[in-house]
């Protein structure tokens, strides 16, 4: 068994437990990149083992290997002391491994029951799907673990918290003893997160082993027994949770002390740059997403929008940017009304927009960087003759200036955006949107999925832009980002601003407000 050298006596209770998972010398390379580099990873039976690291550290790759979705280039895996060949999820399931993915693996058009039993469906008369048999078994499991659910609902109609419950039931239905949860709290409200933790503790009590992937240190400290830290594909260390601290884990994750605070002067708000009155916006399913929302944003300030994802942030930003119809209400940039005037006119009125979806919305991946640098402004007279013929030399000199100014690492301006790393792709967008000196900037998840260096760079640029008089509306799922960048914080709940807070507000209070004052039951 494990002969790794560790400080003895650190966690005597679980020390005695045998190993449920042993991963040895796991290496996985993508063309040009090492995702996991000779990784050792042990999990003891009956523990909650957190696996943490930045985006791209190799956590998901490692767990996808354990679950058989990916194949390691080299290395060995043992489950419960037995060497295991995991060629696919079926092997993993047979070994008692189950995985709850970050992006739910649920089929919206099927029922909850069908989703849970998929792959191990009860049948009658040969191959006929046994609906009542499935319901019965699901009922048995859900009552055993206290996870009630209606198996006949269409899965796509459930709120996020319940969809995650379906995922967990799926794993339990397959008889998993080792549960991998990949970023399970990313989409949950603080209340739902607490509910989840109750479930996890119950599962451990009943003998399950849990691997908990996260980059949220507080949650890790709250729920786990041990923590393994990955950085750039390498194991930095495994520590018992009781003996570590947030600061130590953060250092291990990024290799240096993180600047939790962004260096900035107090805001000097000027005139109103963006005014929104009684705005109503509908979502894809034609349900109200933003409800009677009014706000004022002044030049020289950053207004952060805090809220659990799915409370109307995306719809709000898209309506402001002119890419989503406004059902009723008014939007002004300065004294120019831009309600429902489309993205082009809105941008002309001085609105910049860093969209939340970088690859699908903010960039055309097959375009060159130069072409991407004018994306949205292609008909401006600066870049095209009367809006018809592109002025290639102006486009190139503009692009080269921005590449230098915003430190985009690229071989040339002709390189397709597809070839850049995530951080550099985001820098292209930031450069483009800030480079035109917008009056108002909508920054939606501006640092999602980029490396720490790029995060710091983008934060500095946003603050600098504020200091030159831009009004910035910041939407982010990271409360830390909201709190450290914003001059004011608006809490969005079910499409309405329920409170205006100062950046000194406690995370607990924000969490409470984000969930509707904590009075409501868990909903997505």
């Amino acid at each position, binding site marked *: 068994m494990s002969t790794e050298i560790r400080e003895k006596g650190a966690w005597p209770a679980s020390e005695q437990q045998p190993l449920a998972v042993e991963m040895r010398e796991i290496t996985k390379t993508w063309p040009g990149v090492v995702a996991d580099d000779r990784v050792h990873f042990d999990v003891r039976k009956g523990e909650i083992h957190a696996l943490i690291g930045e985006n791209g550290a190799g956590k998901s790759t490692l767990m996808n290997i354990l679950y058989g979705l990916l194949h390691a280039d080299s290395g060995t895996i043992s489950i419960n002391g037995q060497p295991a060949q995991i060629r696919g999820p079926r092997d993993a399931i047979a070994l008692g491994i189950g995985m709850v*993915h970050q992006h739910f693996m649920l*089929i919206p*058009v*099927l029922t909850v029951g069908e989703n849970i039993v*998929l792959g191990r469906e009860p049948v009658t008369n040969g191959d006929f799907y046994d609906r009542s048999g499935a319901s019965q078994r699901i009922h048995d499991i859900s009552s055993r673990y206290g996870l009630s659910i209606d198996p006949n609902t269409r899965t796509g109609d459930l709120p996020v918290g319940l969809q995650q419950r379906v995922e967990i039931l799926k794993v339990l239905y397959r008889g998993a003893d080792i549960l991998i949860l990949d970023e399970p709290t990313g989409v949950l409200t603080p209340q739902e997160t607490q509910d989840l933790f109750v479930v996890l503790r119950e599962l451990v009590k009943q003998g399950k082993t849990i691997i908990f992937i996260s980059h949220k240190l507080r949650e890790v400290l709250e729920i786990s027994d041990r923590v393994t830290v990955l950085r750039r594909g390498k194991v930095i260390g495994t520590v018992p949770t009781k003996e570590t601290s947030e600061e130590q884990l953060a250092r291990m994750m990024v290799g240096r002390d993180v600047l939790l605070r962004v260096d900035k002067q107090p805001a000097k708000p000027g005139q109103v740059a963006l005014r929104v009155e009684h705005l109503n916006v509908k979502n894809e399913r034609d349900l109200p997403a933003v409800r009677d929302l009014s706000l004022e944003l002044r030049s020289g300030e950053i207004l952060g929008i805090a809220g659990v994802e799915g409370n109307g942030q995306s719809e709000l930003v898209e309506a402001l940017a002119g890419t989503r119809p406004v059902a009723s209400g008014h939007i002004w940039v300065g004294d120019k009304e831009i309600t429902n005037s489309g993205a082009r006119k809105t941008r002309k009125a001085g609105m910049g927009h860093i969209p939340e979806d970088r690859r699908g919305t903010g960039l055309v991946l097959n375009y060159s960087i130069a072409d991407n640098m004018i994306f949205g402004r292609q008909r401006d007279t600066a870049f095209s003759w009367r809006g018809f013929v592109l002025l290639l030399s102006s486009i190139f000199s503009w692009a080269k200036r921005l590449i230098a100014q915003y430190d985009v690492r690229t071989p040339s301006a002709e390189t397709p955006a597809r070839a850049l790393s995530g951080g550099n792709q985001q820098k292209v967008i930031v450069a483009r949107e800030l480079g035109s000196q917008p009056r108002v900037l909508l920054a939606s998840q501006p640092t999602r999925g980029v490396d720490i260096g790029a995060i710091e760079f983008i934060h500095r640029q946003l603050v600098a832009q504020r200091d030159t008089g831009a009004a910035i509306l910041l939407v982010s799922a990271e409360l830390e980002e909201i709190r450290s960048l914003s001059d004011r914080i608006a809490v969005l709940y079910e499409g309405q601003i329920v409170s205006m807070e100062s950046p000194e507000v406690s995370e607990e209070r924000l969490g409470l407000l984000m969930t509707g004052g904590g009075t409501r039951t868990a909903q997505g």
Partner: protein
Amino acid sequence: MNAVLQILGLFFTAGLWQLALELGALLLLPALGGTISERSGVVNIAMEGMMLTGAFTAVVTDLVWHNALLATLAAAISGGLMALIHAVVSIRFRADQIISGFAINIFAFGLTTFLIDKMTNFQGAAHVPQAYTLPVITVPVLSNIPFLGQVLFQQNIMVYVALALLVGMNIMLFRTRLGLRIRAVGEHPQAADTAGINVYTLRYGAVIASGLLSGLGGAFLSIGINNVFLPNMTDGAGYIALAAMIFGKWKPFGAFVACMIFGIGEAIYANNSTIHISQYLLNTLPYILTIVVLAAFVGKSAAPAADGLPYEPGVE
């Protein structure tokens, strides 16, 4: 005005409905093929080529072995082999499935024409004697029912086969474990894969099944209805079946309704000799109707969510 009345009059003749059902069944076979393939997430516009291959194989086999049943089996298998190419190219090599399907159609046209030219020394046609063709089954007693008897119980054996496959396909897709899995793979292959379902096996199976069904359709055409193989004799039937599948919102019975509409259109056309409007103009009607129905009633949302998207494990 007179023409309209004449057409309406046709609807009261059993002959029109008998022919409509026969032609509808001919389209139904490839339409069912398209349905199962696309339900598994592989776009298939290759029914035309697979049908043509089946039609050719049926005639050649029948001429050699004088056995319609064997010829039909061979036709199905040849369609399945064509489908296998589409499956390999679009599943294994993750090609654009529309281009691959289109390539099948051109390739099948080239191959069958090439071979028939070689075999008949550039005559370009091979006739099958009536004796070796697929028989018309007249069901005793039932076929004596006035009107309905002629429509439902005096049909080519392949009409009954097609209707049985229709029912079977519907049960399979919506009542069985296999159907649940096929639909899961077509909606969200990652989810199915993580649940331990083999995405590739099911997709290969579904695409090959579409070839078998289209090959059957080809046999029906060349040794059931026409008794001859001619180059490009399908003349777009596979494409009409594709339209019928979409028209029917990727459901077997929906496709059947659409096939019957085309069948009726074709049957009116065939009975048209007494009507005084251009048969060519009349012939455009089913196509225009399809466009109108597509535009007016069928939303994009009806298609399986992962239809046309290649699957690669471990990628979200």
